[in-house]
């Protein structure tokens, strides 16, 4: 669903081929197509399945189209956008999306870094601890959300309140976690799933450090903190950026946790959930599309900015 649709390859190919005539160009052109042939099925498939729908979304976003009122279908101009932007619910959803994404990404990034540092050291059973750490990420997201909602947060039989009773006896406080802190409940459930992800990327980063340099610094009398601050952290920077970017891409789109834990209630509806509702429940297609276009514009803005900062890692990867 990208707007960065690049018919570049074709255009570039045409550009690069000199005007027809000589035998050499003909051969080169055949060669070009022979090279392109294995790529084309994947490329064409992606353009049709991800780019075309988005073009339709843009068209519908300028239309008056509600499935409940099929007779009123027509051109709406920027009406949908005005309604989306001025709507208090949408603005709240934007705010929730930002809080949710920033909260989950920042907390799991810090936790992930600390745990990666712990796991970077040699100790007995490191492989087992690493496997235990990634388990939360391998629980189906819906199942994880159900687990947190019913088995952990539930005020009557959840584990959290059970532990409180264990610790403080029958008079222990028994808070209703989700009702008291709906957004934080979702954030913590997601942090539990995303910390392993951040940890894995950062651990890979830590293990790609040039060890001889660090060893030399140690011999030269640099202490652990200095090595971390002036050598490890700068080296980790692009890994931190990459995990933050990838984490943001996935968490911004989160639907499963919001849908399962609060059903978007208690002020926790984020943009994906709101759009889902506008379209699935309210059947206001024009408005849902306008909101979709706005989400895409926001994501592109963030992604171009973020991608530029992490592109070194990808460039290194592509530049074999």
């Amino acid at each position, binding site marked *: 669903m990208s707007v960065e649709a690049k018919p570049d390859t074709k255009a570039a190919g045409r550009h690069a081929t000199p005007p027809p005539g000589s035998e050499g160009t003909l051969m080169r052109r055949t060669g070009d197509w022979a090279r392109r042939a294995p790529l084309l099925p994947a490329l064409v498939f992606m353009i049709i399945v991800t780019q075309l729908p988005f073009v339709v979304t843009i068209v519908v976003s300028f239309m008056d189209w509600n499935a409940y009122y099929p007779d009123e279908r027509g051109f709406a101009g920027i009406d949908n956008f005005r309604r989306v932007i001025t709507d208090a619910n949408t603005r709240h959803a934007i705010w929730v999306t930002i809080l949710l994404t920033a909260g989950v990404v920042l907390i799991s990034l810090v936790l992930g870094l600390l745990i990666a540092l712990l796991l970077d050291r040699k100790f007995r059973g490191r492989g087992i601890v690493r496997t235990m750490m990634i388990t939360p990420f391998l629980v189906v997201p819906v*199942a994880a959300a159900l687990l947190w909602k019913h088995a952990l947060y539930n005020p009557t039989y959840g584990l959290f309140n059970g532990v409180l009773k264990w610790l403080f006896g029958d008079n222990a406080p028994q808070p209703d976690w989700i009702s008291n802190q709906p957004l934080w409940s979702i954030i913590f459930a997601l942090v539990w799933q995303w910390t392993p992800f951040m940890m894995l990327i950062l651990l890979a980063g830590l293990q790609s450090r040039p060890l001889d340099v660090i060893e030399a610094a140690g011999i030269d009398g640099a202490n652990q903190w200095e090595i971390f601050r002036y050598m490890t952290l700068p080296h980790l920077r692009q890994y931190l950026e990459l995990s933050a970017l990838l984490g943001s891409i996935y968490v911004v789109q989160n639907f499963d946790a919001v849908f399962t834990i609060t059903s978007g209630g208690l002020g926790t509806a984020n943009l994906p959930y709101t759009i889902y509702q506008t379209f*699935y429940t309210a059947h206001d297609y024009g408005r849902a599309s306008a909101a979709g276009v706005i989400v895409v514009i926001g994501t592109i803005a963030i992604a171009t900015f973020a991608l530029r900062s992490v592109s070194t890692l990808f460039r290194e990867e592509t530049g074999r």
Partner: protein
Amino acid sequence: MSGQVTIVTGKKNRGGGFVLGGLAWIVGILFVLPVLWMLLTSFHSEEDAAKNPPDLGAPLTLAGYKSFFDTGPWPSIANSLTASILSTALVILLAFPAAYALSIRPVKKWTDVLFFFLSTKMLPVVAGLLPIYLFAQSVGFLDNVWLLIILYTSMNLPIAVWMLRSFLSEVPVEILEAASVDGATLSRTLRSVVAPIVTPGIASAALICFIFSWNELLFARVLTGTVAQTAPVFLTGFVTSQGLFLAKVCAASIVVSLPVLIAGFAAQDKLVQGLSLGAVK
């Protein structure tokens, strides 16, 4: 190499190392604890599961699993398997030649093509959902598992292209030259020369695509009904507000997560590479 460093730092604080190792264990246990709790609860009776404070030593039973399977989850599990396996096969079929054209015999502007694939992952699924729904509705394709197969293929194709590309770029050039001297055609080269070398890479890419397809909820929730619903959709639907259901929910969550846990542990070493779209090795 890492051994040497451990010696250097280890000498300074062997006691500290012991404490930090213990801390790592505690953190690991804390993270896995909810899953263990889910596992234990799934083997308790509904009455024991709802006790507060919890009764750890309650007798174990398969009642939770039985009542989950009584709700008829098999069609949705079969749909999930169909959608995940077929879309993964399609992904590999499309991504493998594409990765070849982006690494071994690269097309012009191949970095742009790669970044085009990457950029499709950046944009929210929800923005394309409506047109897909309307299209599927108009051609009678709603509640059809093939629609999910196509969408999951597009969802995972960029991941597979990036991953396979980074594996393919490690194939020695000499082997390919030998194949071309022997007059092997492209599809033959791909099948008989390149594929065997990168089989482990293809396997881990496939496992990761399988996980993402299996986990997907939004598309499945909107585009399927009673016929093609997947296991995650089934999970969201069977929690009722009446009666005790905790053991059943835990059993269901374990059963539905099992394929992902198996695939994830199998692909553990390549998990980072897949999740970071090949950027981290």
